[in-house]
């Protein structure tokens, strides 16, 4: 990577000079200087990854991959939807080899756009459980997340939040806070319900929960947990990932919040708790297909899975790899078992249902 500092001061100076009249050349020169600053030259032993995951842990993964194979991972982070539009516009000229997202619904959209190629290898098949990958091999999970119920310990008994259905009952009138339905996890949760129980049931449930709202949907997953702890409501739904991260937070205020709330894996006696994956696939026009496949295989290898477990609060995709100790302490739980592409297939319908019941 080149050192851009001299250019920085140079361009700052150019920007600050007001008599732009005679500086036409400077502007041209600065654009050239900037272009020279971007990486890309030299070594071409790399693989390009579009990723909607922005975790520091992922950089450790990239370093691990480079150590194991000598191949550098060049990442472009962004929101999955935007990266998809870029991939679409680039078409066959795209430089991206792998597309990674933290939600199966988004991965399905890439597949639907015809921008993934199916890849099936023994290593992937062996390491990724059937229900955590695309049936045709367009994308493969490498970590998983559970959708849990959080509740205020001094107001709710655990058995009262044993099911997602409970959140729509009279017991929780005006006692529920939820994240906006624009959020992809929220959409995936409802999409899974549509797959299992049909659209009518899903709509009735969303409407019932909507009727119990203590406030209009706002904020992030962590904000829902905070609102429950603060007594604004008694229960909410969030990704287990955020709950455990707050538990480990360097900020004492976060840990205080977690002290006031408990969590439950819902529907253990029924269909199991909803799970979603972080996963990736090889792009349709990958220029470095072999390395891309190698990268996907690495993500589910022993080395990567054991490295990721303590760095992050996600569950490893492979059941035989132990999760981080605090996650392990939460105990094993029964997972909802549906074809993963259902999260994508029903996403638009889930969005419509949320719209109809007024869950903004």
């Amino acid at each position, binding site marked *: 990577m080149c050192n*851009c500092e001299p*250019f*920085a001061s140079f*361009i*700052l100076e*150019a*920007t*600050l000079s*007001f*008599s*732009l*009249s005679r500086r036409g050349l400077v*502007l041209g020169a*600065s*654009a050239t*200087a900037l*272009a020279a*600053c971007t*990486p*890309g030259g030299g070594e071409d032993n790399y693989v*390009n990854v579009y990723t909607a995951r*922005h975790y520091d842990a992922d950089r450790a993964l990239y370093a691990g991959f480079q150590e194991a194979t000598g191949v550098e991972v060049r*990442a*472009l*982070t*962004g*929101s999955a*939807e*935007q990266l998809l*539009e870029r991939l*679409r*516009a*680039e*078409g066959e*000229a*795209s*430089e991206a080899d792998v597309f990674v997202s933290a939600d199966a619904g988004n991965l399905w*959209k890439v597949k639907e756009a015809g921008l993934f190629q199916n890849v099936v290898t023994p290593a992937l098949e062996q390491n990724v459980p059937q229900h955590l990958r695309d049936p045709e091999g367009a994308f493969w999970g490498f970590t998983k997340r559970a959708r849990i119920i959080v509740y205020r310990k001094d107001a709710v008994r655990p058995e009262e939040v044993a099911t997602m259905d409970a959140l729509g009952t009279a017991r929780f009138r005006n006692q529920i806070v939820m994240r*906006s*339905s*624009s959020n*992809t996890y929220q959409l995936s949760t409802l999409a899974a319900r549509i797959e299992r129980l049909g659209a009518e049931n899903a709509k009735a449930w969303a409407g019932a929960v909507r009727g119990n709202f203590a406030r*209009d949907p*706002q*904020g*992030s*997953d962590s*904000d829902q947990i*905070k*609102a429950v702890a*603060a007594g604004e409501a008694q229960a909410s739904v969030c990704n287990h990932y955020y709950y455990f*991260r707050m538990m480990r937070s*360097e*900020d004492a*205020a976060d840990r205080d919040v977690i002290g006031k709330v408990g969590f439950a894996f819902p529907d253990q006696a029924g269909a199991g708790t909803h799970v979603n994956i972080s996963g990736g696939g090889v792009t349709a026009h990958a220029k470095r297909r072999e390395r891309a496949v190698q990268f996907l295989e690495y993500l589910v290898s022993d080395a990567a899975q054991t490295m990721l477990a303590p760095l992050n609060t996600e569950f490893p995709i492979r059941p035989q790899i132990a999760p981080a100790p605090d996650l392990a302490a939460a105990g094993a739980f029964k997972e909802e078992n549906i074809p993963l592409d259902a999260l994508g297939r029903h*996403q638009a319908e889930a*969005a*419509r249902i*949320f*719209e109809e019941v007024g869950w903004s």
Partner: protein
Amino acid sequence: MSLAASPADTRALRPDGVAVAAAIATLICAAPAIAVIALAVTRDAGAEFGAALIREGAIGTLSLVLAGGAGAIAFGAGAAWLVTLCKFPGRGVFEWLLVIPLAAPSYILAYAYASMTWAGGSPFPVQGFWGAAFIYAVGLYPYVYLAARAAFASQSACALEAARMLGASPSRMFWRIALPLARPGIAAGAALACMEIAADYGAAQHFGLSTLSTAVFRAWYAHGAPALALQISAVLLVAAMVFLFVERSARGRASYAGGSSRWRPLPRYDLNAVAGGSAAVFCAALIVFGALLPLLWLGRLALLHANVQDIVQPFVNSIVLSGSGAALTLSLAAAIAVAARRATTGWGKSPLFAAGMGYAAPGAVVALGALSLFGLAREAGWVGGLGAGLSLAALFWTYAARFASAGVGPIDAGLSRLSKGFDASARTLGAGPWRRFVEVDLPIAAPSLAAAALILFVEILKELPATLILRPFNFDTLAVKAYSYASDERLLEAAAPALLIFLAGLAPIIILARTIERRRAGAA
């Protein structure tokens, strides 16, 4: 060229270079927005609830623009009046400090306030509609402040002195003389603030509001309908154009005589102890809520989680990108503003609106327009993939499309103080369009150019969605870093890059704010 050649002859003999440059600049700036509208019209959105999304979003956007905009105007114009025309304790310091909130992106203010005052943790939770309106008012008032201060400062001392001799009180002088005279400047600043509000996605989304901007992303992300997203964006773009047109024509009708270009220190009112104290508290409160409080909070979070080495390269990238992006956009904006100022027909002013459209659209949408054009060019075989060079070019293009208006506005306001006589005299002396541009327009508009440069640099520094989607591999900026962490709800880690955006924006703001003042004094 001889004195005998009349201006008309000169124009007839060869094409006006400035006009051609302006036409090209306008095309560059307007293309992505036009692409969005074209795609919106031609693509089938295929979603039946589009109308409901648009209706609900329009109401939300309008209410926020009214509430947040009114706050920004009251704070900005009030503060500008106080520091320019009154004497009170701390006035000289406040004059600089009041621009500081400009360095804070609304989305970062929203994150900071939300985490500082989360419900139950504070008696005054900043949330919902009023939370967002509060953030826009304290975060965006500097746009109005800068423009209004320039307008107040350039007012003829004679008019104010005459008013004072006639026994007008400070407040009467403000309402009857200074405010009407400063209206064009205030309107230009307010237009920027209002369009920022309309285009904002981060804060509105965080507070769970339904606006046109959040509807765009709702359609795009949740409903998986980019075509519908484009249609909603087109509504936003057209509304912005109408808004700009109304603002301009209202301004056009109200032209006041007496703007002397001769400079001397303005007479300042001595405020009594109570009034002076209140003025100081008012200014201090704006700085505290717009910058200091969130700044300290972010500082506290950043100390809890220091990740300094991770943000050195993004910091450098941010500075380089913002510097060159601002320089390019500024040159385009200057060409557009000067050509429009010279135009005698209504059509000649149309570049102002065309270039202004992009400002009211969320950056992601403008980037989507640029991406679509890129896709067309690629299919036509003109360009290849988005390699490092091409993606930077697309990024600069999007910056220009998005922010040209932020540059055009102040430059145009600066040029509006220039009497047409200058241009006519220069023409009589045989100066061609370029020479008049370089030797007459630019020096006179220099303070405005400085203000424009400042705004552009900081805008691009804060810009997120276009940078996110169009940047090359392994190229992170501070805003991208802050977003990456914040989107994963890790405010602790997001705090350091967010703080640096603040601080990196501060230096140019203060340098430029001071330079404007010096230039003014030097022009006496």
